[in-house]
């Protein structure tokens, strides 16, 4: 009996080593450990042994069973490992092929610039307010201290509509009136973004439609030094921390004093180049202290309140920042342009 067991172990061991596939393995398991397997049959014969040999044979038979089982488990593991290894050597990808293209959309460059402006003024506590694009002459001009036929009207070429007195707004400045009437009598600071329109021949430098963002602050203690501080903060946030900023006297009928704001040309570092018309400076926005009459038209007493206003064009800013050579790209909506700014 013991002999048979030893023989069985040896035979099983060699057959197990020969088993290569999971089918052969299963065959082996059935042959030795299965219900009709060799070991089971042997164990069934234990009863026919003399009683004194039974305990010893039973012990050995159990050992054999455990040995065979652990051999089987090890072989299963060994084979699985082998299969995996074979799989892994066959499974290499062509890593030089490009990845799966992802489809992300993108925001229009004007929107991106607007958001940047919102963020910068947001950090300074400015609200955002919008007012109508189609506006009346009274609000677009007259309430801003630009009477009919006033010479200052030369500064804005206007689109007129067939509705009497209704025009396309030439700037976001009428928003100043809406803002003042909304916040009165509180002090406030707000930016006024939106589309504006000018009756100007479309060219590489001029568009009939464009965005503008006006920023205004009104209070009992707002000065032109605050304006300069805000402008400097804005220009450096937008164009770089060590940009030089320059204020130059100018004229807008709704501000007094008025100033044009230039930043140092970043193409030539102020040395002069075609982009800055050899001046070393790039004009980025107009600004000033709100004219007393405009404050009054908004409801604020100019003897008590002061305020500043500034206005800029996001397209102009984008043009300068990205070196865009032609403003007409903005509203042509050529994906080859728009997707450059993704």
């Amino acid at each position, binding site marked *: 009996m013991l002999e048979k067991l030893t023989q069985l172990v040896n035979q099983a061991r060699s057959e197990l080593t020969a088993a290569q596939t999971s089918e052969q393995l299963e065959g082996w398991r059935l042959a030795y450990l299965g219900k009709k397997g060799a070991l089971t049959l042997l164990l069934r014969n234990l009863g026919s042994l003399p009683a004194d040999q039974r305990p010893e044979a039973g012990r050995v038979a159990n050992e054999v069973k455990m040995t065979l089982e652990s051999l089987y488990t090890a072989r299963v593991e060994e084979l699985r490992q082998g299969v995996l290894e074979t799989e892994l050597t066959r499974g290499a990808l062509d890593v030089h092929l*490009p990845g*799966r*293209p992802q*489809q*992300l*959309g*993108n925001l*229009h460059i*004007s*929107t991106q610039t607007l958001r940047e402006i919102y963020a910068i003024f*947001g950090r*300074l*506590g*400015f*609200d*955002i*307010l*919008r007012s*109508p*694009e*189609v*506006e*009346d002459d009274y609000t677009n001009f007259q309430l801003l201290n630009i009477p009919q036929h006033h*010479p200052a009207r030369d*500064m804005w070429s206007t*689109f*007129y*509509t*067939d509705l009497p007195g209704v025009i396309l707004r030439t700037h976001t400045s009428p928003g100043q009136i809406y803002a003042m009437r909304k916040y009165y009598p509180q*002090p406030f600071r707000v930016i006024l973004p939106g*589309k504006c329109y000018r009756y100007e021949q479309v060219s590489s430098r001029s568009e*009939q*439609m464009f965005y503008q963002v006006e920023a205004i602050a009104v209070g009992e*203690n*707002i*000065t*032109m*030094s605050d304006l*300069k*501080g*805000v402008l*400097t903060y804005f220009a450096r946030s937008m164009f770089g921390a060590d940009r030089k900023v320059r204020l*130059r*006297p100018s*004229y807008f009928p709704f501000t*007094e*004093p*008025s100033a*044009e704001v230039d930043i140092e040309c970043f193409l030539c570092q102020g040395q002069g180049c075609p982009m800055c*018309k050899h001046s070393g400076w790039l004009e980025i926005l107009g600004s000033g*202290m709100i*004219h*007393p009459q405009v404050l009054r038209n908004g409801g604020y007493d100019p003897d008590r309140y*002061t305020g500043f206003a500034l206005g800029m064009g996001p397209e102009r800013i984008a043009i300068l920042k990205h070196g865009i050579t032609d403003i007409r790209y*903005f509203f*042509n*909506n050529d*994906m*080859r342009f*728009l997707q450059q700014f993704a």
Partner: protein
Amino acid sequence: MLVPLSWLKGYVDIDLSPKELANVLTLGGLEVENIRTIGQDWAPDKVFVGQVVQVRQHPQADRLVLVTVDYGQAEPLEVVTGAPNLHVGDCGQKVVFAIIGARLIDGHAEELRYQVLKKSKIRGVESAGMVCSEKELGISDEHSGIVILPEDAPVGSPLVDYWGDTILDIKLEPNMARCLSIIGVAREVAALTGKRIKVPAARNITVGEPIGGQIRVEIADPDLCPRYSAALIKGVKIKPSPQWLQRRLTLAGMRPINNIVDITNYVMLEFGQPLHAFDYKLVRALPGESTPAIIVRRAHDQETMSTLDGNQRVFNSEMLLITDGGGPVGVAGVMGGLESEITESTSAILLEAANFNYINIRRTSTVLKIPSEAAYRFGRGVDPELTLAALRRSVDLMNELAEGIPASGCIDVYPGKQVPTIIDLPAHEIKRLLGIDLEPAYIVRLLESLDFKCTIMANGAIRTVVPSYRLDVSIPADLVEEVARLHGLDKLRDTLIDEEMPGQQPNRDIELEERVRDILVGCGLSEIITYSMTNLASVACLTPERTMPSAEQYIKLTNPLSSEHEYLRQTLMNTTLETMASNLRFVDRVAVFEIANVYLPAIGQRLPYQPRRLSIGLAGARDIRSWLTNDSPIMDFYDLKGVLETLCRRLGVPTQFEPEAHPSFYPGRAVRINLGGASIGVLGEVHPQVCQAFNIEAPRACLLELDLDALLAQANTDVLFTGISRMPKLSEDLALVVADEVRSDDVARTIHEAGGSLLVDVVLFDVYRGKQLGEGRKSLAFNLTFQSPDRTLTTEQTAQIRARIIRQVAQKYQAELRS
């Protein structure tokens, strides 16, 4: 305004380089846009002032002469020229002489081309240089003759020293009307550089008969003509102006005509006072009178006259005319009449220097479309105190340059004389507006450098008398601006607002709009921005029949730049399709959106209704083409619907869809987007003929437009946390067979309702039609997910729910289980 530096220097000392001066002016509020240098190319050792010594006939050519020129060197040189203004026997003319090696413009070339002068033989005679034309020197296009310099030109002097110049091109804002003259600019230069201005005193010639009795002036409408001054000059000889005057006019951008017209232009450029010269002999007396009369009055409606430019003009009663005893002789401040024009035969000049209401002049010049130099200046405001000084200066020049004999005295009718403006600048106004402290004495010094007369009052205010030419200064803030620009805006502090202000208020409207943009970009769409103005032909393309919309329903621009952009848009659909079409020419996938306003007439409202719209357009391949996704399917209705469903889910808006028959869309492939019972937009596959009309080169295009205001009004972005169940999920499929017309969304909703709270998800994963189902039937296969928040579900429980679902769909839709 073009300012020749040589002219400017006559009134103020300038010791800055042109570039430095330009910088000072720019920072002082007179933006110098361009600096042009005249004579840059005139090498000082090659181009000289010369003098003709002798002119001989060229031995070989009839039309050429040999000119010997003295140019200050030991030996004069002989050159060959064909200039028609040099003749055999001439001697003594001052000319511009260029020697070999000079680099000049090629006078014969059409385009601008430079050439270096080489030694050459012309028809057998050696030419040692050249006498130059204006074109060759780059002054003008004149090449018919050579330049003849004034008699006092210094022979041998480098031309650049004698004739070189720098011209500043200054951009003047409307408040800078006072600087539309050389003296006006000189005044600013003086104030900005701490110099004094020098204006030549008039000679006050009084040789002729007194002017009184020879002309009568009446202002019938003094509200439009505060002042009318006039002088009379007789015996004038009309001829070309001298070279120096012509040259100054040319450099300042005006064309010389004759000495009288040139003098009026010259004095206008010098002082800023427009002048007008009438032929005195043609000025008529009133009926029954003998003295020629000028009457300044409003036109009668439909009154007519021909202006100097030869055009017949029709006036209305808002326009101001200069008339004489017989009728109109000029449009006041805008342009003279043709009949009283100065001609070769004019011998007596009635010279007008008047002042007019600027708004009225601007309006007249705009309505009549006459943009004259005079109207430009009057339209921006001219100092009424200027008339006499300008008249005297003109009289001096007409005496000097046209041999005129001035009548003694001037006519001066001045009904609109103003008292000087006085402004009290409160003590703290500078600090209040600028945020910096300046000493009162310093403020006074700055203002006085600009001719303001200042007194410091007991209360600290500065009482300021405004000079008559400062029409732009009327309130304290104007004075603050003057102080600020002279002190220097760069000297302001950089402070951030330190006033206590209410905290920043969110703008939900804008925030939601930006969220919409982010969601759509996340869906793979690119944002476009198209014009707000459109054309009706493009809108018509939105219907297969190309039905033109009714123009009366649209707001129309009265002055569009082109007929392409003539109407304010009422839809974004056409420009979205146009953008898709133009891009599909070079990409195979277009996925775009736009958020913009449309403009709808609102009867009885101050302004049109301007709601926000969203449009989305999809066309072409679903996937970007690559080796992984070659032959991608084309985007269809469901791609677009999925984008909108995503958007609505993210915004928390419960939109519904109803089939829609819309002319722009493929029949049966469009839905109306409903929200709270109201339609807010439409979505679908574009009608093939509409695609064709827009030249969309893709198998199909999908389009959506909705009312974004309505959508965002229902947005619910407040999220409440829902507990996450740890209990196991049970998932089973349910295939139902229903009639074709049964709506899958209705079935899904019923399943949801019947399933109750333990049915957590229902996904339609297959739709099948086939013979075994029978004609007009379809199978809808749903995957149902069951889960309880707090216990493990048994199959008995889900079977109960499933039975309930099957009962209800059977009852409502006659749905049968698919076997």
